[in-house]
C-alpha cells in the first residue's frame, strides 16, 4: 500500500496528475441476519467534492455511513481511504485517520454545556500527549490555549456562540445539529460524513445548515451528506448517489439523477402517473 | 458416577434456581434491568411463611400463596416508587443498579431489625422420607420439585393464554408498538415485577423448611440465579429454565467431587461465558 502511495507521489511530481479517489468503496455489503442492508456498493469519492447520498427510508444510507465510520464491520467488500484499507478498523481509528461523522440523533454528551461538549470532543485536535496533559507541562498549556481558541473560533463561525455556557440539551434541534457538526469539525476531519443534517428542520434552519456546509466545503473538506431532501442537495452537492434497498441505482450530477426513471420510481413506488 | 442423592439434590437446587431465574428474566425482559434485590424477596418470602405457620398457624400451602401475594405486592411497590423513577429517560443503568444493590442492604437490615438475626428453623411441613431401593428422598424435596412444575405450568398458561400474559409478551418484544395498542407499559412493568418477586418469595417459602431462615439467606440464591440467567442467556425465559437446570445439577455434581471448588468453578464458567458468548445459550446477541 505504501508502495502504491510512493508511486502516485512520483507520478504526480512528474507533472501528470493522477487523482486517485479519496475514498473508494468496493463491493461493500452489510448483512443483518439474512437481510442485506447494503449490497455490493461501489463508490468513489473525489477529494473536495460534496457528495449527496439519497434514497427512500430503509435504502441503507445510514448503514453505509455506519460501515464507513467503523461502527459496523462490513460483511463483504472493502473501503479504501487514501489507498489504505480502513474497513474493519475501530471508529476511533477511522476518526484519527481523518474521517469524522455526525449523528442524526444521539448527538450530545449527556449533561454537558455547549462549551464543555466541544472541549471534551476536541480530543483529536490536541497535539500533546496524555501524560503531558496530566502534568500540565508548558507544551500542553500552549496546546490547550490553542485548542480553546480554535473551539471558540469554530463556534463563532457557525454562529452557535450565544449560549455556550448553557446545557447543550437546551438548544433547539437545529442548533443541536450544528453543534454536532461543529464537534465533528473540531476533530480535524479530511472527510466529513453528515447523517441527515437537515431532517426535521424547517426551511430556515435547513438553509442555515446548508450555508454552513458550503463554508465547510470551501475550506477544502470533502463532504458526504445523507439527505432526504433533494432540494437541499441541489444547493450544495456536486454529485449525488441514490440508494434503494441497499443497492446503488444512480450516480451523477443532481439534476441528471433526479430525473432518472428508476430514482423517481424508487421514491414514489410505482410509475408516475 | 455420583450417587442418586446428589442428582436429587441437584434437581432440587435446579428447581429453586429455575424459579428465581425465571422471575429475574421476566423482570429483565420488560424493565430492562437486573434486579439485584431479587434474592431479598426470596428471603422475605421465607420469613412470611415462617411467621404465617408458627405465629398464625396457617397451613403451609396457604402460607405459600400468602407469601407470594404479600412479597409480590411489595415488589410491585418497589417498582412503582423506585425503579420506575430511576429508569425514566435521562437516567442511565447506573442509577437503577445502584438502587437495587443498596436495597439489598435495606431489606437485610429491615429483616434483621424486625425479625432478629438468629437462625430460625421451620419444622418440616412434610416430614418423613420416601424410601426407594437405594436411597431416600425427603417428601419436602419432592414437594419442591412438584411445586416448581406447577409454577412453570402456571406461568406457561398465564403467558400464553391470558390477556395479561399477552400484554406482557407484547411489551417484552416491542414496547413502543405495545403502547400504541393501548398496553400501558408502566402497568405491565408493575405487574411483571410483582410476579417476579412473587416467584422468588414462593421459592423462598418452599425452601424454608429445608434449610434455615435468617436475613441473609437471600444472598446465595440471588447470585446463583444470576449465574443461571447468564448460562441460559439474559432475556430468555427458556434460558432461565435450562440455565437453572444446568446450574443446579452442575453445582451438586461438582461439589460432590471437589467440594470446596464448586463455587469457584461456577464463577469461572460464568466469566468465560460472558467473555466468549455473552448471550448464553438462548439469549439474543447484541450487535
Amino acid at each position, binding site marked *: 500500500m505504501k508502495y502504491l502511495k510512493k508511486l502516485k507521489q512520483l507520478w504526480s511530481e512528474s507533472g501528470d496528475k493522477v487523482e486517485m479517489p479519496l475514498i473508494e468503496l468496493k463491493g461493500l455489503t452489510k448483512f443483518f441476519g439474512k437481510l442485506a442492508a447494503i449490497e455490493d456498493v461501489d463508490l468513489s469519492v473525489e477529494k473536495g467534492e460534496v457528495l449527496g447520498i439519497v434514497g427512500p427510508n430503509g435504502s441503507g444510507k445510514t448503514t453505509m455511513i455506519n460501515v464507513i465510520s467503523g461502527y459496523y464491520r462490513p460483511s463483504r467488500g472493502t473501503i479504501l481511504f487514501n489507498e489504505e484499507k480502513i474497513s474493519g478498523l475501530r471508529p476511533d481509528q477511522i476518526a484519527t485517520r481523518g474521517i*469524522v461523522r455526525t449523528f442524526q440523533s444521539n448527538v450530545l454528551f449527556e449533561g454537558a454545556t455547549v462549551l464543555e461538549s466541544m472541549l471534551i470532543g476536541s480530543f483529536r485536535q490536541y497535539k500533546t500527549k496524555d501524560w503531558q496533559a496530566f502534568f500540565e507541562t508548558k507544551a*500542553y498549556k500552549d496546546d490547550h490555549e490553542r485548542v480553546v481558541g480554535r473551539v471558540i473560533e469554530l463556534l463563532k463561525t457557525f454562529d452557535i456562540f450565544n449560549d455556550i455556557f448553557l446545557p447543550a440539551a437546551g438548544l433547539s434541534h437545529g442548533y443541536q445539529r450544528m453543534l454536532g457538526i461543529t464537534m465533528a469539525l473540531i476533530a480535524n476531519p479530511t472527510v466529513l460524513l453528515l447523517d441527515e443534517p437537515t431532517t426535521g428542520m424547517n426551511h430556515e434552519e435547513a438553509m442555515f445548515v446548508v450555508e454552513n456546509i458550503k463554508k465547510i466545503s470551501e475550506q477544502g473538506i470533502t463532504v458526504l451528506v445523507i439527505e432526504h431532501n433533494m432540494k437541499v442537495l441541489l444547493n450544495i452537492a456536486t454529485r449525488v448517489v441514490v440508494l434503494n434497498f441497499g443497492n446503488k441505482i444512480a450516480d451523477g450530477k443532481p439534476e441528471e439523477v433526479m430525473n432518472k426513471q428508476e430514482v423517481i420510481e424508487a421514491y414514489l413506488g410505482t410509475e408516475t402517473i | 458416577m455420583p450417587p442418586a442423592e446428589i442428582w436429587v439434590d441437584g434437581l432440587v437446587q435446579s428447581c429453586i434456581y429455575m424459579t428465581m431465574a425465571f422471575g429475574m428474566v421476566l423482570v429483565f425482559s420488560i424493565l430492562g434491568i437486573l434486579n439485584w434485590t431479587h434474592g431479598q424477596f426470596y428471603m422475605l418470602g421465607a420469613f412470611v411463611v415462617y411467621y404465617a405457620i408458627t405465629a398464625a398457624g396457617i397451613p403451609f400451602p396457604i402460607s405459600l400463596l400468602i407469601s407470594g401475594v404479600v412479597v409480590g405486592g411489595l415488589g410491585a411497590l418497589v417498582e412503582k416508587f423506585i425503579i420506575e423513577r430511576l429508569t425514566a429517560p435521562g*437516567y442511565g*443503568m447506573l442509577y437503577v443498579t445502584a438502587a437495587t444493590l443498596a436495597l439489598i*442492604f435495606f431489606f437485610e*437490615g429491615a429483616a434483621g*431489625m424486625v425479625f432478629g438475626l438468629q437462625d430460625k428453623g421451620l419444622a418440616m411441613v412434610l416430614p418423613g422420607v420416601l424410601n426407594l431401593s437405594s436411597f431416600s428422598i425427603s417428601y419436602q424435596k419432592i414437594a419442591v420439585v412438584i411445586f416448581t412444575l406447577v409454577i412453570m405450568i402456571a406461568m406457561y398458561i398465564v403467558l400464553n393464554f391470558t390477556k395479561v400474559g399477552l400484554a406482557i409478551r407484547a411489551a417484552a418484544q416491542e414496547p413502543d408498538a405495545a403502547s400504541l395498542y393501548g398496553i400501558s407499559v408502566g402497568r405491565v412493568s408493575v405487574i411483571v415485577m410483582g410476579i417476579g418477586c412473587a416467584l422468588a418469595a414462593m421459592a423462598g417459602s418452599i425452601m424454608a423448611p429445608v434449610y434455615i431462615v435468617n436475613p441473609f439467606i437471600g444472598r446465595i440464591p440471588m447470585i446463583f440465579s444470576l449465574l443461571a440467567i447468564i448460562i441460559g442467556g*439474559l432475556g430468555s425465559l427458556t434460558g432461565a429454565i435450562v440455565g437453572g437446570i444446568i446450574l443446579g445439577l452442575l453445582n451438586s455434581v461438582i461439589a460432590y467431587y471437589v467440594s470446596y471448588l464448586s463455587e469457584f468453578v461456577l464463577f469461572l464458567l460464568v466469566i468465560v461465558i460472558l467473555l466468549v458468548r455473552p448471550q448464553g445459550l438462548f439469549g439474543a446477541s447484541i450487535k
Partner: protein
Amino acid sequence: MIPYLDYKTLLPRTAAGFLAALLVIFPVFTTNVITLSIFISSGIWAIAVMGFTLVLRTGQFSLGQAAFMALGGYTSAILTANLGMPFWPSFLLAGIVSGIIALIIGLVVLRVGGIYFSIITLALCEMVRLLAQQMEGITHGVRGLIPPPPPPIVLGSFEINFSTSIVPYYYFMILLVAVTSLVFWQIGRSRLGGTFSSMAANQILAEHQGIHLMKYRVIAFTVAGVFTGFAGAYYAHFLSIITPLMLGLWESIQIMMMSIVGGISSIVGGALVGSLVLYTLGIYLSRLPIYNIQYLLFGAVVVIVLLFLPKGTGLIDLWGKFWRKVFREPDEYEIPEEVEAAVE
C-alpha cells in the same frame, strides 16, 4: 454541568486548606483511639471509593473493588508475615501487584462493557475471596493472616513507633489519602478526566471523536487497582489482620454506596465525604440496640440520594451549594482563564 466534569471547584481553596490543616493537627485534640480509628478507616475506604468513582467516570460499574483491597492486603500480609519481608518494600509491592493484576484483568474484561462487566467483577471479587479461603497453606484460610505493624521510623533522636500508639497510623493515613487525592484530583480536572467523562456521557460519540475506549478504560481501572491495593495493604497492617471474609462482594457494594452518597460528580471530595459519613454512621449505629439498623439506613440513604437529589449529585454537591449560599458566591460556574481569554 456534566455531573462528571470536575472543573468547577466545589470548595474554595482556602476552606480546603483550613480543613486540611485542622485534620493534620487533629490528634493534638484527641488521642481517643476510637475517634482516630474511625478517621483512619474512613480514609482507607475513601481511597477505594476514589478508585471506584474513577472507573465509573469511564462508564464502567465495577463491583470488584474490594477484591483489589484484598489482593493488596494479602500480598503485603504474605510478604511480611509469611516471608518476613520488611514493611515498606512489601507495602510498595502490594500496590504494584494489585495494579498489575488490575491491568491484566482489565485488558481481558473491559472489552465487554456494561452489565456484563459488572457481573464479571462481581464474580472476580468472590473468586478472590474463595481463593483466599482455600489456599490454606499460604493464606491460613478463614483464620486469616496477621500482618505485623510497620516498624518504628527513626528520625534523628525522634522515634515514631507504630506499636505503641495509634497516632502514627493516623498521619500515615493522611499522607496516603493526600497523595491519592492529589493524583485523582489531577486526573479528574485534566484532559484525561475530560476524556473519561466523555466516555461516560456518550460512549459512541466519544469513540467517533477519536477516543480509544479500551485504552482509557484500562488506564482508569489500573490506576484504581494500584491505589486500592495500597489501601488494602494499609488496612491489613492497621487492623493487624486480614481474613477472606473482610473484603468481598458486600464490601464492594459498600464502596459503591459511599461513592454514590458522597457524590459521583467529584472523585476526591465525594469519596472523602461519602466514606466518612457512611463509615462513621455505621460505627455509631452498630452500637445501638436496634439490630442491623445501619444496613437499613445505608440502603435507604443511597436510594434517597438517587431519587431525590439531582441526577449525579451527592452530599458533596449539597455542601458546595451550602457553601456558595453562605459566602454568596454568585457563580455556579467558574470559567477557566484560557476560555475567558479566548472568548474576548
